[in-house]
């Protein structure tokens, strides 16, 4: 059938309050009907069993688990424990288990529950340390709250990643905030350019001209300062928006960027199963976004909780390129050949030639931590494996548009 999934994503569609820029499948827990969260936890665990029964892996063999949202830590502690303990029973010692948390909902009790079941990594939604900016984005935390939560998590022995939002002016500057976080034990950073998603309060404010955004050139200058700081601290930009020292990358996210099979459970979560019976084709399942409908679907009251979409080989190839070229590792030629019968240089001679000045030898896969599908001995990649350099990553869309045009001119198969 499909290549068995080795990564599991679990979506918790609740948060304390909706942020001004957010268009995720998430709603304030306080507004949810009583009992909904508890029922959803049970339904989601049940749904994992269904998906695993259908697609694998056998005997709980997930390498990575990621519990995201929303804000998983907003769940009342007994419910939070029920979710994590339920997951622990279904997953046998993954090599990376991440839980997303926001500073205001991270406390000793939550940390103890996570410790108890084997969570190894916390992804902390910091976004900024400028209190005025946080208020502006309707974030409930402050720099002081963040500092306290971070200290607790580091003290409890978790590997902590922090999210920052770029593109908005802030008191300490982006590099200043990053230095502050690294000084307090953060070992992985995700820095996202603000995306004004349609329909969010923030995009409405921007449309009215009420939002001060950094210009393209100012944003670049901010990022240059950030990157020189991070390089000095031993970090590298290993993906468009992610920075870590080698071997501290997020293995779970690497599974997406490698386009390995993965499962997603919970409202709005997505699964992708690659390498199906049709050579090169994939299958994508998108779970219903509305929590109440999802509950009814999981209990069998209404039909299938997920929309299933076959991904034709042509689209699957492009997805593998779109994801693979996001990283300094580039697409994995061995996996690419196994899946599509060819390698990117065979498929895209023209685009790769046109972008040759922005392509560099692909970095070695993080290999020190064993037992995840991408693990390889830390030896150099094959000579023709390439990834985009920093400027190339910044212009990824343009590169991909060239690839897309070239793919369209070819016959559907690799030949």
């Amino acid at each position, binding site marked *: 059938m499909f290549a068995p999934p080795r990564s599991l994503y679990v979506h918790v569609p609740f948060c304390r309050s909706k942020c001004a820029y957010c268009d995720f499948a998430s709603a304030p827990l306080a507004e949810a009907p009583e009992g909904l969260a508890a029922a959803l936890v049970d339904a989601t665990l049940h749904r994992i069993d269904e998906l695993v029964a259908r697609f694998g892996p056998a005997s709980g063999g997930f390498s990575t688990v990621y519990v995201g949202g929303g804000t998983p830590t907003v769940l009342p502690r007994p419910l939070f424990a029920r979710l994590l303990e339920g997951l622990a029973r279904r997953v046998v010692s993954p090599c990376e288990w991440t839980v997303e948390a926001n500073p205001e909902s991270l406390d000793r009790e939550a940390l103890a529950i996570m410790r108890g079941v084997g969570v190894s990594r916390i992804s902390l939604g910091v976004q900024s340390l400028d209190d005025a900016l946080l208020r502006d984005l309707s974030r409930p935390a402050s720099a002081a709250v963040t500092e306290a939560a971070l200290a607790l998590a580091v003290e409890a022995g978790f590997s902590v990643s922090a999210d920052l939002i770029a593109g908005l002016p802030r008191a300490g500057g982006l590099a200043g905030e990053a230095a502050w976080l690294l000084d307090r034990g953060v070992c992985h950073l995700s820095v996202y350019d603000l995306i004004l998603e349609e329909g969010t309060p923030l995009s409405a404010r921007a449309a009215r001209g009420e939002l001060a955004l950094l210009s393209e050139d100012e944003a670049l200058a901010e990022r240059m300062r950030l990157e020189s700081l991070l390089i000095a601290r031993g970090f590298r930009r290993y993906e468009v928006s992610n920075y870590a020292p080698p071997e501290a990358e997020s293995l779970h996210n690497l599974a*997406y960027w490698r386009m390995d099979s993965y499962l997603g459970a919970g409202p709005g979560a997505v699964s992708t199963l690659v390498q199906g019976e049709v050579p090169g084709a994939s299958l994508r399942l998108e779970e219903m976004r509305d929590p109440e409908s999802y509950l009814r679907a999981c209990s069998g009251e209404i039909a299938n909780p997920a929309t299933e979409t076959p991904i034709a080989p042509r689209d699957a190839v492009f997805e593998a390129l779109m*994801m693979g070229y996001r990283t300094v590792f580039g697409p994995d030629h061995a996996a690419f050949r196994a899946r599509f019968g060819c390698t990117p240089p065979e498929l895209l001679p023209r685009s790769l030639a046109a972008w040759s000045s922005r392509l560099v030898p692909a970095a070695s896969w993080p290999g020190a931590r064993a037992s995840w599908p991408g693990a390889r001995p830390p030896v150099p990649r094959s000579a023709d494996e390439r990834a985009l350099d920093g400027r190339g990553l910044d212009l990824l869309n343009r590169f991909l*548009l060239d690839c897309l045009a070239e793919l369209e001119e070819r016959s559907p198969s690799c030949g």
Partner: protein
Amino acid sequence: MRDPAFIRNFCIIAHIDHGKSTLADRFIEKARVVDSRKMQDQMLDNMDIERERGITIKSQAVALEYEAKDGKTYTLNLVDTPGHVDFSYEVSRAISACEGALLLIDATQGVEAQTLSNMYMALEHDLEIIPVINKIDMPAADIAETRRQIEHELGLDPEGALLVSGKLGTGVDELFEAIVERIPAPRHKAEDPLQALIFDSHYDPYRGVIVHLRVFGGSIVPGQRIRLMNSGAEYEVEETGKFRITLAKTEGLGPGEVGYIIAGIKTVSDVRVGDTVTDAARPAASALPGFKEVKPVVFSSIYPMDAADYDELKEGLEKLKLNDASLVYEKDNSVALGFGFRCGFLGLLHLEVVQERLEREYDQAIIMTAPSVRYRIKLTSGETIFIDNPADYPGPSRIEAAEEPYIKAQIITPLAYIGNLNTLCFDKRGTLVSQNHLDERRVELIFEMPLAEVLFDFYDKLKSTSRGYASFDYEVIGYRPTKLAKLDILINDKPVDALAQLVYEPNAYERARKTCERLQGAIPRQQFKIPIQGAIGSKIIARETINPVRKDVLAKCYGGDITRKRKLLEKQKEGKKRMKMVGDVELPQEAFLAVLRENEENER
């Protein structure tokens, strides 16, 4: 055939937007030509663009049967006239097909430039004029003031003005009676030799060319051999009929009647508006007066966005030409854009209409080059040439003298804007010929100025300078000496022929600066820095730079985002098809438009 005593031929003349088409709709409705339930707004304007923009481009006609208070039934032939300056010749022909005119004035706007010029045109043709005050239902309607303007500015009797709301149908019955009572019946006789005036024609895909005409003397019947007196061509009449929204066949058309003929004519360009139809065997002694060949005054090249669509563009133009005799074109080619067509238009609106029809009705993605007038150049060799295409510019050393077409521009404006409008027209190289106070608040300004100046930034500035109050009309009056230069535009150090312009030399710096600025605003950032330069010969006179794009990447892309992000990129790729590669640079369609149009946001 109808007794001429029971025929009334009339047209409605008005400034643009004064509600002519709406009133025509009410006429048709009242006359029960069509059931009101089936009524489509602006019945007479059957082209999409006309309906959408609310303007009439091609004139049409309709015959209404009306039972008057005297108990007799009259045939009222409404000849619809185009409402824009570009088509003033067509207006004049439609007017001369009538004995009377309804002079429509918007009660919220009052008398404007075309109200005056159209009235003069109607007076020249001895038409009985009935002033009609329209839009009386509007809160801003000022009937007393409009009456006063009719008396003082038009010199007509305000007592005779009728009050109408085309929208609600108020006053339409009274208007019908006035048409019967006040507009004279045709005076021509059936025994005279045939003289019929062609005032329009259109192409029907099933029946060929339908010629719209007004019979003066004589009559016209199927089987008759006819001659077009100015072109000399002869045809045999296959069918005659009247305009009843659809074409209604008749046994013939007698003196004074308005109708159509079908005579095996292949294309509308074989028929000239203003030509006289006569009997080939018993021709009239002379043609009806006023014929002239309409010549294009504005020129621009049209290229397909995708060079592979050349044949489709050609087909689209051919189809347009079937219905638009005034459109002329020939093959053209550009280094930057490949094969296309050099087209001639009656004016800027005509150009825009053709552009929109190509894009909408024929689904063509096109690029148009900056419009140009036609220059008359005396070469040092003694030869005289006409050029409208920058590609044909002979170079300064071969030019002995150059001339460009001038217009007489008529502007009517409230007093408050005179200063600013004078400044605008002086900037556009205009000379004030006269300034006539129409009353204590409004002034008519007559300027002579180069037509080329009207093509670039004029209309929008006229409107913004006068807060929309000034109205404008013009006619071409002839050639005057000029200093001509060719402005080249270089993108990434390479001249782009499709962006070159013929300009008045002393204005070249200003024009180059503006063009570069606008291009900078319209061309998206690319992977490298792009200089944009304006040059006369080898001398660079303006420069802008487009900085390279800093970042073009989706910040977040995880397991749940893949489908959406893939589709986003696929959509962007489709958008790229509206980009033209010129050298290494991708130019969007808007870059070519930016050269043509005023866009305040792009200005410094």
